[in-house]
């Protein structure tokens, strides 16, 4: 019974550490996903000059589920609830917040991008996309740095704390 308890405690502590480390890895993955999705959107807007709802619908096909749902929520809210783009965008960012490992830095970049999306001519849109990509690139570097530095720490911390807790208890 004791052995079972020890294994359970060490297992749980290690899992927590590994989960935290995995979150850091997922953040990097999700930022890359954002970068790719917005590159596609930029191309769609620049070359076809499609309005935002149509461009979102077009590029959402074949994207990861989270981005597909994020884009789908925007264009559907605009069409079905007659909501302006900036409001629909703000609502959909909440979904992204809940269903991804993105942090405030990149979410804020996406949020502020939504305020100026579609609000000017195509050259302004290009600058807006460039700014977003720069902010996402900066966030990606931060996330990678954070992952390199902290992933192992979290993994070892999880294992060490659980072992320490076992030793203290017995």
């Amino acid at each position: 019974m004791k052995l079972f308890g020890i294994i359970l405690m060490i297992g749980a502590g290690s899992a927590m550490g590994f989960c935290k480390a995995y979150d850091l890895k997922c953040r990097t993955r999700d930022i890359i996903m954002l970068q790719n999705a917005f590159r596609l959107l930029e191309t769609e807007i620049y070359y076809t000059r499609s309005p935002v709802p149509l461009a979102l619908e077009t590029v959402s096909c074949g994207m990861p589920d989270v981005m597909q749902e994020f884009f789908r929520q925007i264009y559907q809210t605009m069409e079905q609830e007659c909501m302006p783009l900036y409001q629909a965008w703000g609502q959909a960012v909440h979904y992204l917040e809940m269903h991804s490992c993105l942090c405030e830095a990149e979410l804020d970049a996406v949020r502020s991008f939504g305020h100026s999306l579609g609000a000017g001519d195509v050259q302004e849109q290009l600058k807006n996309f460039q700014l977003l990509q720069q902010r996402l690139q900066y966030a990606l570097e931060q996330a990678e740095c954070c992952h390199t530095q902290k992933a192992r720490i979290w993994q070892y911390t999880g294992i060490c704390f659980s072992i320490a807790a076992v030793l203290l208890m017995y």
Partner: protein
Amino acid sequence: MTGNYIGAARVELLLEQYFPKELQENVLQCVNHLDNGLNSLQEIRCRVHKPLFLRCAQGKEIQAIDNVSSKQMRYMVNRISQGSVYAWEEEFRRGYLTLPGGCRVGLTGKAVLEQGQIHTLTHINGLNFRIARAVSGAADILMPLLYEGDHIRNCLLVSPPGGGKTTMLRDMVRQLSDGVTVLGKPGYTVAVIDERSEIAGCIQGIPQMDVGCRTDVLDGCSKSDGIRMVIRAMAPQIIAVDEIGTEADVQALEEASESGVAVFATAHGISIEGLYRHPVLYKLVKGGYFTLIVFLHWHLGQVISEIYLRAGGGGYEAVRYHSDDWGR
């Protein structure tokens, strides 16, 4: 102008799609006092920090109580452009865009210039929603006059803005395209050069208004280029254009006439004398280009037509008419 107005549903949809809730209620409160309700609505004018104005078909103007706020204006601009100003750059540059259903929105704001030319409009401060109405039968009274044996007469419709020229032109096109069974006339192939998407109200190339089954629509193309293009490509029997007024338009119309194509056009104006004084159109009028010139104006809530037919001496003479004369 008589006929069946089918505008109420269109106005309701317009309000629902493009107006914030408070302004929707404002408009509905105002039109409650009108006999025809939403049917009689012709224009909705919104200006930032100013009250909303409604203009009815009878020329009556109604002022709403509440002012339009900057936030409400932003909402409407965002809705009409689908949050995508870049997609309507040309429309913003020209100062208007066409909505699904054929309604046109005029825009005012700060013009951004590039090399002395308007590049776009920003800080939009005024919107004018012009409600497109398909008035079936609007052109009934004119139909017998359009025929000269088997030929179709060149016709010019003239009125001040909002006088019903486009509505009349659209119905003429529809009837000639489908054929007028009452008069025993077959349908003709009609080409509509719809530079401002007002006649057919095309969205992604599909006409939203009924312009007849033998009608080809060239949407968003300049009149002068469009006329030449359709003559070569579509071999129409009739060409219809809205709001002529430039040298290039006149030249293209003359070329069309030489090709044996009948032309229906509209222009701004109030009298035949005014047309003779027009810096460009006087050439067409003096040269007797149009066999038929029709002036439309509102009087006591009805559209009154003054019709002029080209006389033998080159001038024009007024035609007395009554709708019963045509046996319709």
